[in-house]
């Protein structure tokens, strides 16, 4: 019998199988990470406007390098020529931007670092009011809003801006408690050219509702959305849209009359139960959670009594998701509202929420986490001088406001808020009039990415 290589064959098979098993366990090499050097970003500010309205854009730079910004005004006409702006480190730039139509918006591109951005719009007499919100950091193909009102004497718009070069095609569905979702032909397959911004009146389409929500789905392109509400009794409110629903929202308020409303939207197909926990600076211990039932495909208004700086944390049961914003009554005729956040962060820039003096600006910080923290606040001044700083000790789950003196010297300054745990920051102010109480503005800050402060 000839001698073969049977043992070698068995050995070879064993080597291959063992190698395959080892390779399976080892897996591919982990690719290296890379850091980019070209810092840039965008802010989309669908602030809207009206005849004789004024709008101001706040650009604030919490970083260590000068940031160049390119500001372009959008409307239903050709965009304006870009305006180049430099924002020095630790400084704020406030620009007046066109706001003569409800659909007006402003696009901000920035290079070389990071800046925060927010807007304030102010309506003149006979219905004075002020709306303030942070700008939106990204466009999206889906948006949700929940703060519109369509009661008598109220005009409500959805401001939709398309900051990109290509057109967008989208549908808008309106939600209200007493009516099925409203899908109107004029809100279906809406085509919005690139670099344009328009506003859609909501109140003629859903009459007599205190809380009207909206869902926008873009089939083509991406847009940015905010609400703009003008009422005889409540002045001006602005709230930015949210690109996604969440199971938990943190909303803050301060400086109002003490009467607020948690307005929620559930565009989904199943009813939702959520709890809201209210904490104030005076009463850091939470009261009993208030359970609410949010009907599917509708909105809900849940009154909240507040006392000074207040945080409302709304949590959905189960895995459900929804949208919550907080609407607060001012001490005079101007209400305010702001969309909350579902993502607390360790650093925020709070834009100013006023345009005129006298004013009482406030910065409110909530610590929704389980650990106490110390929060540092630094002014980002318009004149570029080194801003004042202060610190706040905020127990877990509590909320606190910066001392009134902190913003006294520079009430239109933005504020950098940093903490070692995730927090949420809010700007709130009353301003105007003889006592500085006529106008009321609320605006949640914008979270600062970690790299923006490192550089």
């Amino acid at each position, binding site marked *: 019998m000839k001698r073969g290589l049977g043992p070698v064959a068995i050995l070879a*098979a064993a080597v291959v199988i063992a190698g395959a098993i080892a390779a*399976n366990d080892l897996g591919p090499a982990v690719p*290296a990470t890379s850091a*980019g050097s070209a810092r840039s970003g965008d802010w989309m500010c669908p602030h809207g406007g009206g005849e004789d309205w004024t709008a101001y854009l706040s650009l604030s730079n919490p970083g260590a390098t000068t940031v160049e910004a390119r500001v372009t005004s959008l409307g239903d006409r050709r965009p304006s020529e870009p305006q180049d702006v430099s924002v020095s480190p630790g400084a704020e730039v406030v620009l007046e931007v066109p706001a003569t139509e409800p659909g007006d918006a402003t696009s901000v591109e920035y290079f070389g670092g990071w800046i925060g951005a927010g807007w304030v719009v102010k309506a003149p007499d006979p219905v004075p009011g002020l709306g303030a919100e942070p700008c939106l950091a990204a466009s999206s193909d889906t948006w949700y809003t929940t703060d519109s009102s369509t009661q008598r004497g109220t005009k409500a718009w959805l401001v939709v801006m398309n900051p990109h070069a290509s057109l967008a095609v989208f549908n808008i569905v309106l939600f209200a408690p007493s009516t099925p979702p409203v899908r109107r032909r004029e809100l279906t397959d809406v085509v919005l050219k690139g670099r344009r911004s328009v506003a859609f009146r909501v109140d003629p389409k859903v009459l007599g509702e205190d809380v009207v929500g909206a869902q926008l789905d873009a089939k083509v392109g991406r847009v940015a959305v905010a609400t703009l509400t003008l009422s005889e009794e409540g002045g001006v409110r602005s709230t930015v849209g949210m690109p996604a629903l969440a199971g938990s929202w943190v909303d803050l308020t301060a400086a109002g009359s003490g009467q607020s409303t948690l307005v929620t939207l559930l565009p989904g197909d199943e009813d939702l139960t959520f709890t809201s926990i209210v904490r104030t600076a005076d009463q850091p211990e939470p009261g009993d959670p208030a359970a609410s039932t949010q009907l599917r495909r509708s909105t809900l208004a849940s009154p909240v009594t507040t006392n000074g700086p207040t945080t409302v944390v709304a949590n959905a049961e189960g895995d459900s998701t929804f949208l919550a914003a907080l609407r607060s009554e001012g001490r005079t005729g101007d209400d305010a509202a702001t969309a909350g956040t579902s993502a607390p962060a360790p650093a925020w820039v709070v834009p100013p929420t006023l345009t005129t003096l006298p004013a009482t600006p406030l910065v409110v910080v909530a610590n929704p986490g389980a650990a106490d923290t110390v929060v540092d606040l630094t002014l980002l001044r318009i004149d570029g001088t080194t801003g004042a700083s202060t610190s706040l000790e905020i127990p877990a789950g509590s909320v606190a406001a910066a001392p009134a003196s902190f913003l006294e010297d520079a009430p239109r300054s933005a504020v950098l808020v940093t903490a070692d745990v995730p927090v949420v920051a809010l700007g709130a102010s009353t301003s105007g009039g003889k006592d500085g109480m006529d106008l009321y503005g609320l605006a949640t800050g914008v979270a600062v990415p970690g790299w923006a402060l490192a550089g």
Partner: protein
Amino acid sequence: MVLIVRDAAAWLRDTLQALSSQSYPRIGIVAIDDASGDGSHELLVQALGAGRVVRNEETVGPARSIDQALQLPVAAGADFLLLLRDDVALDPEAVERLVDATRLPGVERVGLVGAKIVDWDHPRRLRDVGRSADRFGHPYTPLQVGEIDQGQFDRVLDVLTVDTAAALVARDVWQQLGLLDDRLGDDDADVDLGWRARVAGWRVLMTPLARARRRATPDLPPPTDRSRRYEEDRAALASVLKNYSWVSLLWILPLDAALSLVRLLFLLLSRRFEEAYDLVSAIGWNVVHLPRTLRLRRRVQRSRRVKDHALRRFHESAGLRIPRWFQTAERILEEQRDLEVDEASASARLRHRTASLLSAHPVLVASFLGAVVGLLATRHLIAPDPLLGGALPAFPSHPSGFSAELVSAYRTTALGGSLAASPALGALGGLSWLTLGSTVLAQKVVLAGALVVAAVLAYRALVRLTGRPGASVGAAAAYVASAVLLWAFSQGRIGLLAVLVVLPPIVERLEAAFGEEEPADGRWRFVAGLAVTIAVGVAFEPGVLLALGLLLIVEVLAGTSRVRGVVLTLASVAGAAILLFSFLPTIATGDGAALRSEIGTTDPWLLVRLALGPAPGGWWAALFLPVAALLGLALASSAHRRLALRATMAAVAGLAMSWLSVAGYLPGPFANAPVYAAVTAIAEAILVGVGIASVATGLEREAFGFRQIGTAALTLVLGAGLVLQSAAAVTGRWGVGGADQIPAAWALVDSTQEGSFRVLWLGADDGEPFPAPGGDPQGVAEAGGATTTFGITNRDGAPALDLGRPLVGGGRDALETALVELLAGTTTHVGALLAPFGVRYVVAWIDQLPAPARAALDRQADLDHVPAAELVIFRNAVLLSPAAVVEADGPTGRIVASGDPAVIQRFRPVPQVPLETVEGGWSGATGGGNLALVSTEFDGAWELEGSDAAPQRAFGWATDVDVAGSTTARVLYGAQLPRTIESWLLLVLWAAALWFTRKPVRR
């Protein structure tokens, strides 16, 4: 009777004696002595008298000699003319029987009657019983070589023609049609004469009652130095031109041309240049002699009484040539013929016992089966449209596109630069010209031909290694049916297919170099041959060097004559380097990026069966090859032990290297999973061949045991594997095919209005190619979990012009930097960063792009998402044509002058006028712009025609020229001459190398 004699003294007496004993009484003999010098003339005069012998002073050939005889009154007045050669001896009643055949009852218009020709010395061996021809005029005889006369043809046969060595011709025939065409050889002129007679309505008969003995081979020098095939080809075409009607020619000639083209390609690919030259010469001869052919044609057609279709029964079918081709292929695979002699005794009993066609003609049977399976498997690819899909590169619309790129001093693809194109473009261009100038056809010929050539070369290599044709056929079939080869075909991977083609001869040559004996063909020829083989492989896929290196290491570790082997191998590599001298910088640039491939699979279980991607034949049945290889290894006899061990080492190492390549553990230039998998495939095929060869003989004399069981298992595994793989190939869906192989969403990009732009392709770093027509990844942008592969093409997709040429250089580095900026998530203006590259679209598979990368794209302010099924498509809002004149103000000018991404990201759309591509560069109107921006790597050789403006570096890597004040801009490359000289030198080198290593022609 006309007797044609030339130097026939040795047998002429017998011929004359046979004539003298004829029973037919009325024979007048005229003998033509065609300038004999051996005493034949004297014999003729002695036998016939001087008056009946005409002597030519110089040799004129049978045709003219007969014509001379016809001038004589005694011949001109005869009713019948009996043509007879000096080497034919008629039986006594032969003439009488021939004449009788003209008077058969019911048989009219008999124009030509031939005798049954048998061998002079062995009268039972048939030499001729009448002949026919195929549709293309090639003669055909029903006789097998040495066929014994058993009465099987003993009836009067109606044939196309007869052997005019002993044939009776009616007077009307020669007067109407003439006799033999003096331009053609003997046998070919016979076919032509018979065909003409048939066209004119004459019958051509062979009567077995008239028998003539003919000598086997005249001891005469060949009439020309041309091959027999040349004579046959030129005569066949001449006969076709003369004897077919115009209507028939309308389809016969194109078909004949197509078949000739296929044959020519085959001859060229197998380096049988002299045979290819003969074929071309045969066609050329007909072109040169066309006027006379047409004159003869008029004579034939004037006398036409029968339509072509009525003569079909005298023509063999076109399929007749298929066995001839196989026979030719078998002749070319000459090793088998030689080796079969050795094997004959050993396997004689088996053959005789089983009468197995497979064992007798394994190549023929395998070729036939392979052709059938191949035709069935590729039936969907047979269409006039170009092939699309997979990773198949786009061929230029015209063959000149290949040569233009090969000769061009600058790269017209990707991001420009001065890297030379692969010499493979010369081959593809030449092939495209041969395929009637159709690059579409050339594309298909390359793909299908690669499979055939891979099979042939694998067989040749294996038969040299194992010495067993049958075993080699099985192993070669296993190689072709391997998952990696089917995948390469399915994906249209021309480069990898080239690797799979050249690897078998490389392995065999290395075995010879490191073997115990000196290479049989001498060291110089060996080195030249291996150098050409390596150069061909490297030209198509530089990564073949990695395979060579791996095999070299195996041979150094386990070979016999290491020093000689290393010397010969290195000399061959040096020779290949000379043949690729202009391409060497392309291979070396970018740290050997040309050697690298991003393709493959990290799934080791898929890799074991060599399934690198989805394709017919990548399923579990592909395990047949590794399993059969293991069985082959186990069965290897002592004679093949060392070969088997080396093959095992190569196979295992190939698998390991392949996985390490894709998994990212090998340094850049050493990572090429497909090439290593190809090494494993040929190594496993060798093991299969070794196994079969080891059990081919003597198994029946051994006691029953493992070898019998192992043999059965190997047979079962191999047989089942081949059947299943064939079934998969026949029923599967190839990656290449028609337009349906391109994702439908690609139309959104492809339908963009005319204009030049580039497409950036992105994908996960998982070894998968981009969606067609994106081709393979050209680089990796590492960014942690967002890491993606990338490639950049024009709107037509990956071009064949970039075969073997990687994306390297300043442009590539800048592109990778821009992508890292994108993936790192710190910029939202990557559209501006991509504008300098002329990128208008970013495209990826919708389910392949890593989520962080997709999120980064979504964040970009200047990339607009285009909704599409299957694909992720983003349109760049910051459009910049790859070549344009722009209006650049101060800020824009500063951005263009910068290479910093932080600055470039501020680039905004500017008014621009695209420039058109022209020979040597770009040209067009400036449209009021002041800066010509060309998205090609900066090179000081670029110049603005008619201007002294020097080119500047744009965006850190591209080129711009100040065109302010000009109405037109013509940006041209000014350093073409060196590359032109290089190209000519390259052509000379390849011609010399191919001539030196050509296969000798058989005359």
